[in-house]
């Protein structure tokens, strides 16, 4: 006996019923706030008084700020510096680590966990620890520098030096994010069929050739994924800046999200901050599109 078919429309209705709690949450906490922020980005709004429509004035002010090389311009420049500092280095190190771990090291689980630990640690806690490492008078880094140079190198001020502060934040962030990228690369590596390597070895390919001809091309989708995620992550850098330097010294580390936070919560300029947020959204959207386009070209599959 066959089960009587449920009418398709009813089935859809039931499906939506089950989806509705999730959708409601998504609507209330994501969709509505996003559209509210879009509306606010055209207003003056200080939380206390009701919003006043300004047209595109907030966006014009942002443009003017960039033209005058104001603080928003600096935050764009610093965010770009952060991205250029963290992404290539972070990905290269992650790939190198993943290759090492994939070589069948003993105790691989322990290494994998160790490298992944910073990822699951809270950014604020990690930032506090690194502030100790960077401390000019009793920090670990200056201690090591003095030891290694035999006392010839003067202690550096790191986070208090406009020329070094961003590099210090970059180094810490690369360390923090390494485990995440590594685990994704490791998964990608384990998805490459072993028989390809066997065949290549029989044909006399060197380890270097095997990497460039097999591993690297087949890892392209993984690389593309990590790249997109890293670009988005770098564009949104905030917590370590807020904790370690609060944008200083001499505005050398203020970033886009740091500016959004300051304008929204210190100056109660929710409209201006929302406009910044949408500029950031447009930038991330554009960058992700470009990254995807670039990495999709030349993707291969060996069946």
């Amino acid at each position, binding site marked *: 006996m066959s089960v009587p078919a449920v009418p398709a429309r009813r089935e859809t209705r039931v499906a939506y019923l089950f989806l509705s709690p999730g959708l409601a949450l998504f609507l209330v906490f994501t969709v509505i706030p996003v559209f509210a922020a879009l509306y606010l980005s055209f207003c003056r709004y*200080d*939380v*206390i*008084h009701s919003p006043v429509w300004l047209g595109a004035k907030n966006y014009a002010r942002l443009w003017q700020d960039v033209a*005058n090389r*104001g*603080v928003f311009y600096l935050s764009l420049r610093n965010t770009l510096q952060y991205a250029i500092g963290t992404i290539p280095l972070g990905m290269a190190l992650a790939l190198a680590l993943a290759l090492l771990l994939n070589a069948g090291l003993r105790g691989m689980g322990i290494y994998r966990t160790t490298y992944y630990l910073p990822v699951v640690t809270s950014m604020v806690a990690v930032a506090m620890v690194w502030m*100790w490492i960077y*401390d*000019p*008078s*009793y920090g670990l880094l200056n201690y090591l520098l003095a030891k290694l140079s035999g006392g010839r190198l*003067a*202690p550096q*001020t790191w986070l*208090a*030096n*406009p020329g070094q502060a961003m590099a210090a934040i970059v180094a810490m962030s690369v360390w923090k994010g390494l485990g995440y990228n590594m685990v994704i690369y490791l998964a990608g590596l384990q998805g490459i069929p072993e028989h390809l390597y066997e065949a290549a070895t029989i044909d006399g390919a060197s380890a270097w050739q095997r990497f460039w001809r097999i591993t690297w091309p087949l890892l392209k989708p993984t690389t593309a994924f990590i790249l997109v995620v890293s670009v988005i992550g770098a564009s949104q850098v905030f917590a370590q800046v807020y904790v370690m330097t609060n944008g*200083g*010294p*001499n*505005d050398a580390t203020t970033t886009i999200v740091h500016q959004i936070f*300051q304008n929204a*919560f*210190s*100056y*109660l*300029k929710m409209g201006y901050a929302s406009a910044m947020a949408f500029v950031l959204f447009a930038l991330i959207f554009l960058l992700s599109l470009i990254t995807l386009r670039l990495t999709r070209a030349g993707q291969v599959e060996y069946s």
Partner: protein
Amino acid sequence: MKRLTLLLPLICLLLSGCGRSKPRIELELWITDFNQDTTDLLNKQLLPRFEAAHPGVKVNPQYISWANLDQKLAISFAGGVQPDIFQVGAEYVGGLAYRGMAQPLDDRIARWGQKGDFYPASWSTCVYQGKTYGLPYLSAPRVLLYRKDLLRKAGYSHPPDTWEQLADAAEKMTVRDGTVTKFAGMNLPVSWQVFIEFLWENGGQIFDESGTHSRLDSPEAVEALQFYADLYNKYQVCPTAGMPTIGGSIPVFASQKAAMEINNQVGIKNVSKYAPGLLPKVGIAAPPRRKQRAVSVYTDWLALSPQSKRPDLAWELVTYLMEPDNLAAYNATLFFIPPRRSVAQTATFMRENPQLRDFAVLMDQYGRSLPAIPEWFEIRTGLQSAISAAIYQTKTPEQALRDYSRELDELLAERTKR
């Protein structure tokens, strides 16, 4: 049935709870300046005594961190549940008054009749456009702390009196080894607070009296910033990154890494805590003058919410906390200067510390509070960027101040356009 037996005790509990609670008047009090001694004082002595004198009244103190204060205040006000009384700092009156987040108290103050006992610089912290929005609770004047022994060695029998003497004495007391500063002639943070002091000493101001136009492009302002930047770059009395300290937690002056600094009474507290032997060698004086003398005073104060349902009772609690003994006890827990003259002169902890009394005297003579303006927090950040650019030499002082002055004019115009 089983479910009912489970629910029964709960229902009883709820009913008994309702039955027991008499109609009560509650006051919400937010305190931002506190340590363990302060919370003990308020929770165990001051507030219970107030409650005992007002049967049926319950005061709920909440101890709030400065980091969360702005957000909590804005959100509670927008939600109509602002605390009846809240403590804020030296930079708040403009923003609170402009947004209607604090009650003007002039009529109550006139009836109270004790305004004359407060130091003018402390009092002006709570005043915006002629109206008073609270009562001063704690004061911290910033004066010159100096090492008498080192200054004598540098050939000075008195603390530096002018900018020229300040630069000269600081330069002479600085000890350098190559590019590394071993000992700073003056501990000098890169901060808008320091700039404002030089600006005032030179007769300048940030904006005009009406708060509509920048005055940072004036020659007085440029000269003040030039001098400030020169202390780092020409006289090299302190590295821009600050001096290394003992263990990172002991402040520079108490770490004996600097000969002078501008600081409030907490500087003295740190010396007596970390280097008590140094205390007799530390002198206190008015900061050096240019055209005039200025002691910048940072005062924390108590504001009343316009949303309070019990404004009379809230006012009573505030004036109770301002009573001489209560004010003295509160200030003693935090080592601040009581903003009332009678209290500063008679409180035990003030009498035991001759140096603290000097702070009070200098505050009375030369004290000045920050200008009150709604956009203060934004101005402060912009000012910090401008002075950093000059000190780190990415711009000249003149260029840095001219650029920021233009921005400030635009910012101030936004309010006046509304």
